[in-house]
């Protein structure tokens, strides 16, 4: 018993982590389903609606409904990827070829460690984030690690040892570099505002800086009144565009672009390794949606100017998580919606948009916000 008590602090994080990974992977597979369903609805089709699991699929009404919505499809997809014949082309560089899908997926799964997804009220009545690791500057970790995902793409392109994947890999790396800059710069004003100019503590004394430091939790808490997107629309727009580019989604999916690169970086991949790339793409989308919701859409805050109607108990925490997830789902839907609306940009257009438009705009936005904050600080004190 004593041993159990002593080891609990070590075991619980592992349990939480495994729980979160399973939920996250589940979300990934269901985003794939969402993509298939939404695209089919947009195109006037029906989408996957035949897969039926035994027993649960044969429940009177629910079974038919679930089958019609394709809810069993991810299982079939996963099994298909698992049991397909595994073909490794003879001309690939084996070691890196096997490594690439892992390198693509791991960063996306790592970043979720610092992603707060809800809040709870602790014993002292202080609001705390629900997150695996509540680190200051979690955003920096996310930016740093998530862009490592591009190594997976580049490795895949290079180790495939054939033209199209290589082109895809090269494009991906160039695109990542171009948009990473604009992305980081678009974020800075948000953190500057959320961490400044200060707050009055319980004793009524003005303290400089933010109560929560620069953590993502602090950003959400600073949006209790107005969501960032309402008064920082330019930052939001820049970040969103950069996000689309970073996640390799249409209209910027240069690395894949089926029309000119066959399949892009994963042309030579099949079965489960391809599945990993696929999951990685959606993991990036979910992470991106989560970050956008945290930074610009007020996280788990209910509505602008109506922050926290959730209670203090467990139910309140669950509600906050649910509301956060609802927003994330909307963003995922938005990603998909966008994909089936816009055509793909040409490669040079992507580059010139990144360097000639987004980057200068982001810099201007940053300078403008800095000046405003400086003025505000000097004038109000």
């Amino acid at each position, binding site marked *: 018993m004593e041993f159990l008590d002593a080891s609990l602090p070590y075991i619980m994080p592992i349990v939480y982590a495994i729980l979160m990974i399973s939920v996250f992977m589940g979300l990934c597979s269901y985003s794939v389903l969402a993509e298939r369903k939404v695209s089919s*609805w*947009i195109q*006037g*089709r029906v989408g996957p609606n035949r897969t039926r699991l035994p027993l649960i699929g044969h429940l009177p009404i629910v079974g038919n409904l679930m089958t019609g919505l394709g809810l069993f499809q991810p299982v079939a997809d996963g099994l298909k990827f698992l049991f397909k014949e595994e073909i490794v082309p003879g001309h690939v560089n084996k070691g890196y070829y096997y490594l690439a899908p892992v390198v693509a997926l791991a960063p996306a799964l790592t970043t979720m460690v610092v992603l707060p997804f809800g809040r709870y009220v602790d014993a002292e009545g202080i609001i705390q984030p629900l997150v695996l690791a509540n680190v200051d500057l979690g955003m920096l970790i996310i930016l740093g690690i998530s862009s490592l995902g591009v190594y997976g793409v580049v490795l895949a392109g290079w180790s495939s040892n054939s033209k199209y994947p290589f082109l895809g890999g090269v494009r991906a790396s160039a695109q990542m570099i171009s948009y990473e800059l604009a992305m980081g710069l678009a974020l800075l004003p948000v953190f500057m505002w959320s961490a400044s100019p200060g707050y009055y503590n319980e004793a009524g004394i003005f303290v400089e800086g933010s109560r929560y430091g620069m953590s993502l939790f602090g950003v959400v808490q600073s949006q209790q009144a107005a969501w960032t997107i309402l008064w920082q629309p330019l930052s939001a727009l820049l970040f969103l565009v950069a996000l689309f580019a970073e996640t390799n989604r249409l209209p910027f999916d240069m690395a894949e672009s089926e029309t000119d690169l066959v399949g892009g970086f994963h042309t030579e991949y099949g079965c489960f390794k391809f599945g990993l790339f696929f999951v990685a793409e959606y993991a990036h989308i979910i992470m991106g949606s989560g970050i956008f919701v945290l930074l610009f859409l007020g996280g788990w805050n209910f509505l602008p100017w109506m922050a926290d109607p959730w209670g203090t108990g467990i139910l309140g925490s669950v509600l906050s998580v649910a509301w956060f997830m609802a927003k994330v789902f909307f963003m995922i839907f938005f990603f998909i919606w966008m994909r089936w*609306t816009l055509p793909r940009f040409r490669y040079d257009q992507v580059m010139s948009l990144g360097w000639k438009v987004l980057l200068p705009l982001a810099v201007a936005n940053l300078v403008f916000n800095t000046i405003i904050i400086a003025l505000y600080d000097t004038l109000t004190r």
Partner: protein
Amino acid sequence: MAKTKVLERKPLSFAEKTFLPQIVTGLKTTFSSMLQKGVTLQYPEERPTIPDNYRGVPTLVKDPNGREKCVSCQLCEFVCPPKAIRITPGAIDAEAEPERAHVEKAPQEFDINMLRCIYCGLCQEVCPEEAIFLQDIFSLSGYSREEMINNKQKLYELGGTLPDKHFKWDKKKAAEATGNAH
């Protein structure tokens, strides 16, 4: 000569250069199409309506009295471009069917090899008895080559009865009886 009108291409406005209004319009379009009903036909359960005169699988039909119409003249066999039809002519048993004995001939075997048939419809066109029709069956499959050869029984099963009102052979018989054979 028709006058060509050269349309002036207006320079893009600032809003258009940012793409944003266009993207919003596009999003609206796709969203509204998402709310519309799909156009998919759930195939095996739902079948498309086949127009009349569709050239599907060739079949043999019976007349409204349920009698075999084909007289095994073999014109269809002769005309069939890919030689898909094979007929073994036979005689009508006068004992068994005295009513129809004057028709004299009927096919003993009638095979259409659906692996050869090109659905050209020439057999239907050439048949003097209107006994062979290409009807609305459009999906035909089988596990073996033998299965894809429609024999006489299968052909009549697929064909059924067509409601034509000629009754050619009945009239012929009546004319013979009244002494006006032609």
